[in-house]
C-alpha cells in the first residue's frame, strides 16, 4: 500500500495551464505549515496552556498577513473553509440578518455557481432577488445596477475577477452605488486576491471572499473580510462555540491558517514582479497561438482583465474534443456535464455569445510556476491539434467527437 502510494506520488505529466481552477501550494507555504501538523499542534482556542497560546499566536499572525494584503484590520478577517463558504456566509448571512427591512438581493448572471445558488436559496426563502445580465465584454451594466439597487436591498454580490473570462469588474463604482442605498457590497475575490492590488478600505467593499488555493496557498481554507466600521452584521451559518466573532464556529485549522497567511505574505511581496512576468507569458501564449492559427477570438473585455487569463474561441473546433486531443495540456472549458448533455459555459452564454462559439472556447490560465518553455510547448500542441481537428471537421456546431 505504502509502495503504491509512493509510486503514484508524482506530478502528472504535461503542462499545467489551469491556474484558475487551482494552483500548486508554494513550497515556501508548505514549509511554513509543516510544524503545525506535528510539534506545534495546539488548539488555538485553548486558553489555559502554552500549546494553545502558540497556535493562537500563529493563527493571529496569519490573520494579520492576510489582512495586510487587502488593506483590512486583522479583526475584520474571519477564517472559513474556502471561498464557497465565504460567499454563502456573506450573501445568506447578510440577507437573513436584514430580511425584515431589506428583503432584496442582487447579483450578476456571470457569478460563480456558489453565489448564484446562494441567491437562489434566498429566493426560496422568500427574498426578492435580481440576477442581472452582463455586457458582451462581461462587465456589469452600472446604470442597470443603479436602477436595481434600492433601500430594500440587503446585499449586492459582484465578483472582482471572473473565474472563466478573467474580466475585472469596476469595484469602486459598484461600492459607491451600494453605499448610497445602504446596501452591503459583497465581492467574491477568489480569483483576484494575491493577483492584483485590492484595498477594501479604498474601494469601499463591505464583505470580501478569499480562497487559499487560488493563490498558491493550501486547499480547504479561505476567509471572509467583514467590515467593522460601519459594522457589517451577518447571521451565522454554523452554530457552536462562537469562534471567529461568532460568525464561524469550529476549531480553526492552524496549519491551513498559517499556510494562507504565508501565501498572502508572499503575494504581497512579489505581486508586482509576478504580474509582469505572468502578463509577458500570457502575451507570448496569445501571440504564439495567433501567429499559427486564424479564427481565434478572445472572450471577455480585451484589457480590463487579470494578467494570467485567456479565454479563447477556436472557430470550428469543439472545445471538449480539443481538450481530449491534448492530454498533455491541462486547460478547461466552462462547460458542465449534465446527465443529458455537455452544456456550454453559462458565463460565456451570459455574454451573449452564440452557442457554437461558447462550445469552441477554452480557458488558459498562466500562473507563478509556468515557464517560457511550457508556453512554447502549449502553443505548439494547441496549434497542431486545432489544425488537425479543423481538417477532420470536428465542428462545434454538431457535437460529434472525431473518434466516434
Amino acid at each position, binding site marked *: 500500500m505504502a509502495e503504491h502510494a509512493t509510486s503514484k506520488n508524482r506530478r502528472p505529466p504535461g503542462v499545467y495551464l489551469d491556474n484558475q481552477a487551482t494552483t500548486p501550494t508554494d513550497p515556501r507555504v508548505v514549509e511554513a505549515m509543516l510544524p503545525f501538523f506535528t510539534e506545534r499542534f495546539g488548539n488555538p482556542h485553548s486558553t489555559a496552556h502554552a500549546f494553545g497560546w502558540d497556535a493562537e499566536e500563529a493563527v493571529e499572525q496569519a490573520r494579520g498577513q492576510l489582512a495586510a494584503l487587502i488593506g483590512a484590520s486583522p479583526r475584520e478577517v474571519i477564517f472559513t473553509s474556502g471561498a464557497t463558504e465565504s460567499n454563502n456566509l456573506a450573501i445568506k448571512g447578510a440577507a437573513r*440578518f*436584514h430580511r*425584515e*427591512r431589506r428583503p432584496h438581493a442582487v447579483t450578476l448572471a456571470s457569478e460563480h455557481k456558489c453565489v448564484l445558488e446562494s441567491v437562489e436559496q434566498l429566493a426560496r426563502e422568500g427574498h426578492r432577488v435580481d440576477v442581472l445580465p452582463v455586457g458582451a465584454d462581461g462587465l456589469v451594466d452600472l446604470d442597470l445596477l443603479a436602477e436595481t439597487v434600492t433601500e430594500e436591498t440587503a446585499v449586492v454580490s459582484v465578483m472582482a475577477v471572473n473565474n472563466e473570462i478573467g474580466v475585472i469588474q469596476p469595484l469602486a463604482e459598484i461600492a459607491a452605488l451600494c453605499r448610497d442605498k445602504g446596501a452591503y457590497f459583497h465581492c467574491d475575490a477568489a480569483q483576484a486576491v494575491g493577483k492584483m492590488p485590492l484595498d477594501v478600505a479604498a474601494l469601499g467593499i463591505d464583505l470580501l471572499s478569499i480562497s487559499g488555493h487560488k493563490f498558491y496557498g493550501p486547499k480547504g481554507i479561505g476567509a471572509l473580510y467583514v467590515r*467593522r*466600521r*460601519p*459594522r457589517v*452584521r451577518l447571521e451565522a451559518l454554523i452554530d457552536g462555540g*462562537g469562534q471567529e*466573532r*461568532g460568525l464561524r464556529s469550529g476549531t480553526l485549522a492552524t496549519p491551513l491558517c498559517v499556510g494562507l497567511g504565508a501565501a498572502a505574505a508572499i503575494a504581497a511581496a512579489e505581486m508586482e514582479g509576478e504580474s509582469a512576468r505572468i502578463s509577458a507569458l500570457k502575451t507570448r501564449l496569445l501571440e504564439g497561438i495567433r501567429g499559427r492559427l486564424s479564427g481565434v477570438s478572445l472572450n471577455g473585455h480585451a484589457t480590463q482583465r487579470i494578467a494570467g487569463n485567456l479565454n479563447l474561441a477556436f472557430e470550428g473546433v469543439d472545445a471538449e474534443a480539443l481538450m481530449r486531443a491534448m492530454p498533455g495540456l491541462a486547460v478547461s472549458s466552462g462547460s458542465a456535464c449534465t446527465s443529458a448533455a455537455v452544456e456550454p459555459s453559462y458565463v460565456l452564454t451570459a455574454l451573449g455569445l452564440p452557442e457554437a462559439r461558447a462550445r469552441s472556447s477554452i480557458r488558459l490560465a498562466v500562473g507563478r510556476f509556468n515557464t517560457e518553455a511550457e508556453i512554447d510547448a502549449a502553443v505548439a500542441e494547441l496549434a497542431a491539434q486545432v489544425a488537425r481537428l479543423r481538417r477532420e471537421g470536428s465542428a462545434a456546431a454538431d457535437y460529434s467527437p472525431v473518434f466516434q
Partner: protein
Amino acid sequence: MPKLTFIEKDGNRKEVDAPLGLSVMEIAHRFDIDIEGACEGSLACATCHVIVDEAWYGKLGEPSEDEEDMLDLAFGLAPTSRLGCQIVMTEDLDGLVVALPKEVNNMLG
C-alpha cells in the same frame, strides 16, 4: 420628565418616567423591567441588549466600536440592536421605545 416605553418579552408595553441622564439600563432596573446588565454598564457584556424602535434608532447616534463588539456577542441581534447602558436619556428622546430581546447571553453568569 421624558417618557420611555419598554416592550417586554411577552409583548406587554410599559411606559415609565425616564429621568434625564440615566441610561435605559438604569431606568429598567429602577422600574423592575427584566433587563440584566451583568457588567453594570462597563461595556463588558451584552446582557442589557435592547432592540430600538426603528423610528428612534437613527436619533441615537452611532454606537461605539466597543459597543458593536459586545453586540456581536448578543443573542437575537437585530439591525436596530443597542446596549441599554449606552443610551442615555435626554429631552430629545422623550417617547423612546425599546423592546427586550427574547433571550440574552450572559457570559459572566
